[in-house]
């Protein structure tokens, strides 16, 4: 059994994001980069499946050369090998990413492809379903629970939807995008980190990077909130709060 996991290199969630000099992208100086948290969860899901059913976990990443660091982290967690498709441009859109990834995924022929529900930088949440369409595979998004039966080529997935939960059955190969709660990513062990250095990390060039259909015109900050205001202390402030909610905010 061969499981592919898609990972993306993104700024740490705790990072303060500032607009760069070009006014169209972020200033990357001083920012720490991590595996996008949902992708890290997907790596964990893959490792748990491997522990249960055996097989191989392959990490696939499209990004800058520097993404090797986060790819190594996935290898340190326990993935077997990795393919890093190095970008030749900084400008991306999901359709292009999906296209680039699809050629490697086709070549590898995975039994299951896992990814995060969205990358936490551009928050587009498009690559998984787009890949499904390109590769002609079923795709379940926002999975909060997964049971995979490799022998029967079947997966049962619980997915969260607004106001409820759906249970979905798909035949595999399939693409599953992971939501929080499906698994808790492990910390790489010291041994894992040492071993990761020797695991195969293949760098590849994209077969083609399709032309973009959208263009970022500018990047800016959301409107500033009025400065914070403390209206009082303890239960004594409750009356004032209710008055403000009623008269100023006109909410009640």
């Amino acid at each position: 059994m061969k499981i592919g996991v898609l990972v993306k290199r993104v700024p740490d969630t705790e990072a303060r994001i500032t607009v760069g000099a070009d006014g169209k992208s972020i200033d990357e100086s001083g920012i720490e980069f991590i595996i996008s948290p949902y992708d890290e969860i997907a790596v964990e899901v893959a490792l748990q499946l491997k522990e249960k059913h055996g097989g191989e976990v392959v990490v696939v990443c499209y990004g800058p050369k520097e993404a090797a660091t986060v790819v190594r982290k996935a290898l340190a967690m326990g993935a077997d090998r990795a393919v890093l498709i190095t970008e030749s441009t900084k400008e991306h859109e999901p359709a292009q990413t999906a296209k680039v990834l699809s050629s490697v995924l086709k070549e590898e022929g995975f039994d299951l492809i896992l990814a995060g529900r969205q990358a936490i930088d551009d928050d587009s949440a498009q690559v998984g379903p787009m890949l499904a369409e390109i590769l002609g595979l079923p795709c379940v998004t926002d999975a909060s629970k997964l049971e995979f039966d490799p022998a029967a080529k079947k997966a049962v997935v619980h997915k969260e939807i607004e106001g409820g939960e759906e249970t979905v059955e798909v035949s595999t190969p399939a693409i599953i995008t992971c939501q929080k709660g499906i698994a808790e990513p492990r910390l790489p062990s010291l041994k894992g980190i040492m071993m990761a250095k020797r695991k195969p990390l293949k760098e590849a060039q994209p077969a083609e990077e399709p032309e973009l259909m959208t263009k970022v015109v500018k990047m800016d900050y959301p409107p500033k909130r009025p400065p914070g205001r403390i209206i009082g202390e303890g239960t004594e402030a409750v009356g004032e709060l209710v008055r403000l909610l009623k008269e100023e905010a006109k909410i009640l």
Partner: protein
Amino acid sequence: MAVIGYVEWRGGEFRKSAYEVVSQAKRLAKELGTDAVAVVIGKGVREKAGEFAAYGADGILVADSEQFEHFIPDVYARLLEQAVNQTGARFVLLAHTTLGRDVAPRLAARLAAPDVSDIISMNWQGDHLEVLRPVYAGKVRVTVAIGKEPAVVTLRPKMFEADDTLGGAGNVEDLKAEIDWDKVLYKVTELKKSAAGKMDLTEADIIVSGGRGMKGPENFKILEELAELLGGVVGASRAAVDAGWRPHSDQVGQTGKTVSPTLYIACGISGAIQHLAGMSSSKYIVAINKDPEAPIFQVANYGIVGDLFEVVPALTEVLRKELGK
């Protein structure tokens, strides 16, 4: 030519955001000098589809069948593709919900069209559409020019106004597409509604959220009482979710949900940057926290420094009298 607004039907009702989508489709259609067409897919939807006329739908394309009872991504994408072909649509608008996020990229891939997610405003520039979307969980935003038509966009719920005075013609027609069911490898076997049909955080007008300061899962009861009184729902910070006190579907912030309610009441939440990113677009923020230095107070319209276990029940009591409940 047309602008399509996809109308989401789930569990026997239209989502609130569906009305927003149709009204926005109408506004854009007006600028383009064309019609707004609502696309309705589901089981038993025909009867109710007409209500979108008031919200601006000139045409209403209906695919009503037992087979469409549940959302099946590739089938719905196929139907929407057919709707685009049938109407010559230039834009397809969907809500950025779990369903919209799933079907929009598939539709875009089928049409070789661009797809821009989770937009909060749009502007027709005379020859192309420009959209605004938050990125990095709202820490910054980008204005994106869409250079190709047809194009697909998903609208963040609660950011576009639903307007029942837009009055479209509302001509109902059938939407028919050939679907090769043998190739459909996706089956919904169960749909469970959460307790008391709890409203999703992204659609709520009032959210009462708890963080590490709640000290344990049992204490969320006081937040639930307050939320119920106000007709709101309970949310949580990452700390509270990671501690296992609340389900992750309750999480507000960068690895949870981005919310924009009218009122956000943060209780025992310090205001880590990734939490602030997810709730700073709330209209009014109330913060209740013991630590006067907590970053949450920097974004709070009304901050109360104090013990939430005293302040929250007191607030509930005063509000109960105020609201006569």
